[in-house]
């Protein structure tokens, strides 16, 4: 069953608004895009042989957050002592290959996308590039949507960034 074009456009707009909130460092706005029962997960990737059972660890995670712990992360960024983001990083979230499917429950959608994050820090010309595969479960909420589950898997098994003080 195909999803209505109008829903696809609305979801694309929702995802673009999320990117904008993150890149403009409007972290409270970003947090408000999550449902109260929202989850945020980034698994640890391991380089394995082709026929291995998994290469995304079923246990280890880089992020393993609830909305409550995401709020802690945002509160930290609001203090004057989040040195990892002082001065702030410049991030740019680039989304592509957005594919929308209806979720199991009415009014929910599974959205798959690719996310390429550019991060620049300080006056150093070197930058971080983090490429990730996203699988989001979103739920209709009034005129818009809420994230129920952000799942993003980074492509590197050894991540090429000194820290992840930004969101995937």
């Amino acid at each position, binding site marked *: 069953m195909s999803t209505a074009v109008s829903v696809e456009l609305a979801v694309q707009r929702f995802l673009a608004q999320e990117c904008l909130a993150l890149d403009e460092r409007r972290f409270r706005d970003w947090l408000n895009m999550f449902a109260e029962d929202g989850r945020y997960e980034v698994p640890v990737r*391991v380089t394995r042989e082709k026929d291995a059972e998994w290469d995304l660890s079923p246990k280890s995670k880089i992020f393993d957050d609830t909305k409550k*712990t995401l709020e802690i992360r945002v509160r*930290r960024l609001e203090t004057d002592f989040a*040195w990892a983001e002082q001065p702030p990083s410049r991030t740019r979230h680039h989304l592509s290959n957005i594919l929308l499917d209806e979720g199991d429950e009415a009014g929910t959608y599974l959205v798959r996308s690719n996310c390429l994050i550019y991060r620049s820090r300080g006056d150093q010309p070197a930058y971080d590039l983090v490429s990730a595969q996203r699988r989001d479960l979103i739920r209709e909420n009034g005129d818009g949507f809420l994230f129920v589950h952000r799942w993003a898997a980074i492509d590197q098994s*050894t*991540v090429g960034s*000194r*820290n992840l*003080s930004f969101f995937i």
Partner: protein
Amino acid sequence: MKLLENMGDAIKQGRVPARIFNDSEVWELEKTKLFGKVWSFLGHESEIPQPGDYVTRYIADNSIILARDEHGEIKANLNMCRHRGNQICKAEMGNSSHFRCSYHGWVYKNSGELVGVPYLKEGYDGLLDRSKWGLVSVRVDSYEGLIFGTLDPKAPTLEEYLGGFQFYLDIYLKPGPNGVEVYGPPDRWAAETDWKICAENFSGDGYHTPVAHQFGFQLGYFPSSGSTHSLGWAVHIPDKGHAIGLGHTPGLPPFMGYPDALVEHMKNTLSQGQQDIFAKTRTAVGTVFPNLSFLIQPFSPIPGEPGVRFCTMRLWHPTGAGQMEMYSWCLVPRDADPEYKERAYQAYTLAFGQAGTFEQDDFENWTNLTRQAGSSLARDLEFPYQMGMDLTPITDWPGPGIAVDRYVTENNFRNQWATWLNYVGAEG
């Protein structure tokens, strides 16, 4: 190397050259004189529980396969085919009875013996002696599940190398009768940071916490305050380089954060002397020289709510001057229930995984420090390491090593860099 000539006297006077934290000559010396001699951490037994299980790790720039062979013995071998040097195992972990080189097809048992050579008859006329061309084996030994390897056949035993530091390692390794296990595979990431500043920090840098992690005080994370933060102990093993900082907050419940059942167990697994110290310890941050560190800390992911006690183990793997890769594990008590393990792991990810709120600030500081230490003017500068020089060691301390009655001090670091100098500055 001229830099090292005066370093011994400088350390005695409480100074360390800035340049050791980012210098290509120093790194060249470290590769052979330090990492060629010490016992390096390779993995935890719980990472390779079954015959055939393996992980690949490094000692300096040497890739090592750490495997449990078909007899259940733990073996470490250089990850290099003896024929032309190709990397024989390209995965970080897995299970295999044999490794086959993808270049000319030599096949080795996971214990390292060469068992298969294509065209042995037709090419080598049957004259190649397979028993002489097994994988290069690395000597291994273990303590309480921690597996170490050394490239030096003449190195002392691991027991001698640890030199009594086992007493303190037990705070991380013996929470209950069956010890600890890794929760899952480690986080790995790369940083333009010198491994030594990380190893130093985790030898008990209580000094940085109120500033580098000030947000934690702001958000109400710490049971200690700025005024009590310097309380605790710093202990090191002389000439071995191992050290630990034990932070103490008066009035906290003993073993705060552990489930009651585990605290009961610890009466059997820990000696009386260990119990006396560990029960009073809020934070234990320690380093097995040179580059394996641990941190245990009671932590409530949501400040004010009931917490857990999480434990992280981390390997600061050097990849060049001022460059490293990080391995960060979470250790959980084997005997804890799955729900507690999961909560402890979530606390770890929020605080000290790659995206951990505390971890983030450390690597920001360490990366910038490393860059500065590599600058031309810094080459001739020294840093002060005089904190606590006049402290008198505690005479009735129940554990091995030299202990002083202060958490915010640099006694441990002076011993750490004096030990480092003994290796890196050694003749020959």
